């Protein structure tokens, strides 16, 4: 996908930043009266983020002007179509979904099960098809992580809920972690 030379699309990102910064200045705190009462002299609890947000706003406007000037130059020069950056193919988006699902399902499935499932799916997504490679990587990877982080480092990683939690505890006992 590419943008025609006169397209104003490059200005969209800086304007989005500017608008977001402007909007956020109104939502810095849900206790504005308290913030005003706390303020001593020139600064209060919302001073710093407010100043920084106005900084984002002004700099984003500067960035927008720079981009607008670039668009106008391209229009004058009637330059060739400029290829636009494209955010990855289907594999990347599936990878994003998988990573997000792994993280968000950790409390439900527990670290052991979630990591094992994640390993299998990620390797398949990455094009690894050998059952031996997938099996060994999953088994070794999950076991090493359990030993290092649960047994050695004593991190309270999630065990999962309900029967899955009981399964995790049984697995830890089997592996000698508990």
């Amino acid at each position: 996908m590419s943008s025609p030379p006169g397209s104003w699309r490059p200005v969209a990102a800086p304007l989005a930043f500017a608008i977001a910064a402007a909007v956020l200045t109104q939502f810095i705190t849900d206790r504005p009266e308290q913030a005003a009462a706390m303020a001593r002299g020139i600064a209060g609890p919302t001073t710093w983020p407010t100043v920084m947000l106005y900084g984002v706003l002004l700099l984003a406007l500067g960035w927008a002007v720079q981009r607008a000037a670039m668009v106008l130059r391209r229009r004058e020069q009637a330059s060739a179509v400029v290829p636009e950056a494209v955010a990855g193919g289907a594999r990347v988006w599936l990878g994003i979904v998988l990573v997000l699902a792994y993280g968000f399902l950790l409390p439900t499935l527990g670290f052991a099960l979630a990591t094992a499932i994640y390993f299998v799916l990620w390797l398949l997504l990455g094009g690894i098809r050998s059952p031996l490679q997938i099996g060994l990587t999953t088994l070794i990877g999950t076991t090493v992580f359990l030993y290092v982080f649960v047994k050695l480092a004593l991190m309270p990683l999630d065990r999962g809920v309900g029967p899955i939690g009981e399964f995790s505890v049984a697995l830890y006992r089997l592996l000698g972690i508990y």
Partner: protein
Amino acid sequence: MDVFILLFNGLLTALQPLNFGIMLAGLAVGVIAGALPGISFVNAMAMALPFTYLMSPLTAMVFLGGIYAGGVFGGSISAILINIPGTPASLPSCWDGYPMTKRGEAARALTLAIAASATGGLASALLLTFGAPPFAKLALAFDQPEFFAATFLGLVSIIAIAKAAPWISLVSLFSGIVIGSVGVDPLYGLPRLTFGLPALQNGINFVVVMIGLFALGEVLEMLGQRAHKQGTAGRVKLKLPSFKELWALKGAAARGTGIGCMIGMIPGAGATVGAVIAYGIEKQVSPRGAEFGTGVEAGLVAPESAKNATTGAAMIPLLTLGIPGSAATAIMLAALVLHGVTPGPLLFATQTDMVYTIFASLLLANLCMIGAGVLVARGFASLMKVPPTVLGAFIVVLSVVGAFGVRNNIADVYICLSFGVIGYLMKRYDFPSAPLVLGVILGPLAERYFMTSLANYDNQLTIFFTRPISATILGFAGLFVLWALVPDMKGKLMRLIPRSSKT
């Protein structure tokens, strides 16, 4: 003369098999922990702290000092090999180290980084040994306005790095500072930008952001590449650079070391600030400054020297005044207190042997880091033969565990994953992520020091300019900005002014 005798005796104690072995173990743990994306050496030090109960105070400090020295360097291994900084201070190493790896010069980049780190670390250990008491007096003169000025200098160094795209880089930096201000205000206790979400009350930790943006972002980028199934062939042979090659980079190493030693002494500044400032200054000074970011050796050597030069310097306020300047030195302070040792001026008088043994072991650690660094770097370099898909799987899990381990809070995992997606999109759309991360790291520090300064000095904004040290540092910052921007602005103005035709 006394100092040399004390140091010699300290060296003999440090070379005793138990102490030397423990130091080597700490060094190895530190380098490995620092190199693993998602697991920082500070985590390793925290995990090692309970083990120090079994040791004497001296051995405990030697162990933790080894982890510290090794860990600060270790982050550069993953930064150079896979563009994922293992520690925040290794972020500048990605900028010129990884391009060297892409050119097939991974071995050279790693060996230069090892040599530069050892140089900076040794100089810093010598400064600690010979300069601790007088520099402690200087550290006493630092107060909140000076800490703010130093942090401001670190923020301003971005300008040298961001010259090619100043507007977008500054938007990124300020956005990072805004992200860093999410959570409860450090002075008043009021939640800001939390939108009523309990998960955001604790704020957004910079380690979580860094792991998400760099580690996860890089892994997702790897997945999109055609060669995601193939590892690189061949073994990365690590050979120390020749003396001539090192001598050619003496300027960068010396500048980085000097900056690291100065910045390291300032409590709260830390290795990250030192490394970033060193990179920014080197970019200005180097004749190849315009090429920085494409794999210029000076761009790697300067921040590497600086960050390891902060290690010994950071222990000066710790040992002389009992003031820890960073999370790492705070853990060392905890170890000392656990063993009934009170750091401060009396420590030098009552436990001189222990103090000089600590100095000697830090010197040895930086010397031995060359060997430890080569071994671990070789091991990590062999990981490059692993298909990126498999490597990526492990990096994601390490990142999730690392994010969770920051505060044992699942919300940090969600934030990390969100920043992972953002990091990938930033890479694809050429939005610079380094300024954002630096904003997240330094922004909260700058705010805390700024607000505390106002609270301590009757809300006088002028305090930053009336205190001599603070004014000097801010003056440096101003000069640095001019130094960085004026040549470019002059060039642009010259191009705008039409040339007069000759008749």
